[in-house]
């Protein structure tokens, strides 16, 4: 079995989560090669073959060109799986590669299943499905955190790679994260607001619990998207990654991007009406209740 791992670089650096690709390869017990579109400074600590395409020529983000590079390496390596992370890069590029190669794609893989199948989440992480691709190679994207990051060690044998084609996108630049508001990464207690609080007017009730606990107020993505709270409060992959001593999730169902940003907290309390919500999978205590009834009662008792 042979894997082609597609590393992800930004501004000349290999992104840390690319090492999860090696964790997957190790579980699959497979021979590997990697492709990255980057510079000399982006090479991984890995003793195998690394195909290196010049980011200056192919662009930081140019999927029309990047997919041709993947195709060129697939023709040389003949892998069984072409593996991406399920990130903004992977979910943009992987379907283009699958379409170009006319092969199956399985998204957001969390485990290998018996008989050549793959396990993946569905229904907003509440359920799992096992799917079996028909044909090879198979294009995969891996859920972040599902496989351990692994640095295999060694110095790569670098093979340059080129491809022809035209890019239809013009990349204009990056915009850094908005970092106004509190630095949640330093907070010892975070009480986070989810959509389960019902409406913006209910947020002070949650903030009062945070005050009584001596903590800060965080938010899940839907709360920020609805304009109830600032983007600076958002906990998750696209917001802040936090690890307080105590994390209280109020009416948060637990989208994977939120869980990835808070699951390293010391102690996690989830307050949710839905016992089956994915947040239950990471919580130490799950209070099955209406958050707008439970939180005021808890705050009142703590304030006594």
């Amino acid at each position, binding site marked *: 079995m042979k894997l082609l791992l597609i590393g992800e670089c930004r501004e000349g650096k290999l992104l840390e989560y690319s090492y999860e690709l090696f964790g997957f390869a190790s579980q699959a017990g497979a021979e590997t090669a990697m492709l990255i579109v980057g510079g000399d400074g982006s090479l991984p600590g890995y003793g195998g073959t690394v195909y290196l395409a010049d980011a200056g020529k192919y662009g930081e983000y140019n999927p029309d060109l990047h997919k041709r590079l993947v195709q060129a390496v697939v023709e040389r390596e003949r892998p069984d799986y072409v593996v991406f992370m399920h990130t*903004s890069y992977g979910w943009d590029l992987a379907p*283009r590669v699958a*379409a170009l190669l006319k092969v199956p794609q399985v*998204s957001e893989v969390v485990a290998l299943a018996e008989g050549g199948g793959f396990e993946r989440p569905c229904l907003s992480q*509440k359920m799992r499905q096992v799917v079996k691709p028909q044909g090879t190679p198979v294009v995969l994207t891996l859920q972040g955190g599902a496989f351990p990051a692994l640095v295999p060690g060694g110095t790569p044998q670098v093979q340059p790679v080129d491809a022809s084609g035209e890019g239809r996108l013009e990349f204009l630049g*990056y915009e*850094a994260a908005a970092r106004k508001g509190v630095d949640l990464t330093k907070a010892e207690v975070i009480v986070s607001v989810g959509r389960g609080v019902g409406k913006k007017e209910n947020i002070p009730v949650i903030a009062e619990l945070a005050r009584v606990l001596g903590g800060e107020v965080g938010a899940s993505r839907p709360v920020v998207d609805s304009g109830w709270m600032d983007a600076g409060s958002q906990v998750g992959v696209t917001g802040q990654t936090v690890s307080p001593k105590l994390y209280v999730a109020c009416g948060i169902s637990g989208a994977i991007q939120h869980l990835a940003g808070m699951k390293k907290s010391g102690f996690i309390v989830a307050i949710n009406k839905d016992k089956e919500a994915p947040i239950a999978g990471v919580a130490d205590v799950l209070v099955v209740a209406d958050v707008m009834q439970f939180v005021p009662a808890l705050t009142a008792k703590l304030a006594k």
Partner: protein
Amino acid sequence: MKILVCIKQVPDMESRFKPDASGVWYADTDLAFRVNEYDEYAIEQAVLLKEQLGGEPEVTVLSIGPDRVVEAIKKGLSMGGDRGVHVQDAAAHLKDSWQVASIIAAYAAGEGFDLILTGLQSQDRGSAQVGVTVAELLDYACATTVVGFEYADGTVTVKRELEGGVKGTVRLKMPAVVTCQLGLNQPRYPTLPNIMKAKKKEVRVIPVAELLHQDQRVAPVEFRAPAKKGSAVVLEGELADQVDRLIGILKDKTAVLR
């Protein structure tokens, strides 16, 4: 300008899910259905662009599925879409992402859409493949994970959401496919007059057999609940008792309460 918005009807995510007779997907009996959340941002963006251009673009709202998906199409029309397309398929849930994209591309191929908008992913399957694959099949430019959208003179400039709060700005010429991330805009609530107007708008019905000519590339083989990873202490029952028990646990297990 012609705009196509591809939407999906999905079950309420707070439901309890059980396998259907096939054993590979959920049973849809007793479930409430709604428009996939990501797709509401796509509808809103199409309507915002139509308003920006003085109402000139025609917005078509397409959905694939059994008869109930007409409700989702009607919502799109009551938000401001002009006409609907219902690709009638009672077994849509058994099609893979490749087949779904092929159906949409087969419909769109002859229609000359300038812009195709859809959600980044569906809340039920969550593969994030369909929009990009449609673009590849039609040979359109494509940008995904879009949280900012501007249009001027045949060019679309979008902000893509990347990891760690970073965004990337990309410009693409039409025809183009754009997949919408949560937070791109504020999807509007349909007003009663617009709901009434939507009832009169055309919804064209096309049997799926007319559009699907591709075999499945990924077969579903199992559907189940995830293995219980968490060992959460579950507090149920009376409110005052839940409060006392939680405070007891916090005193016991954390240094936060003295």
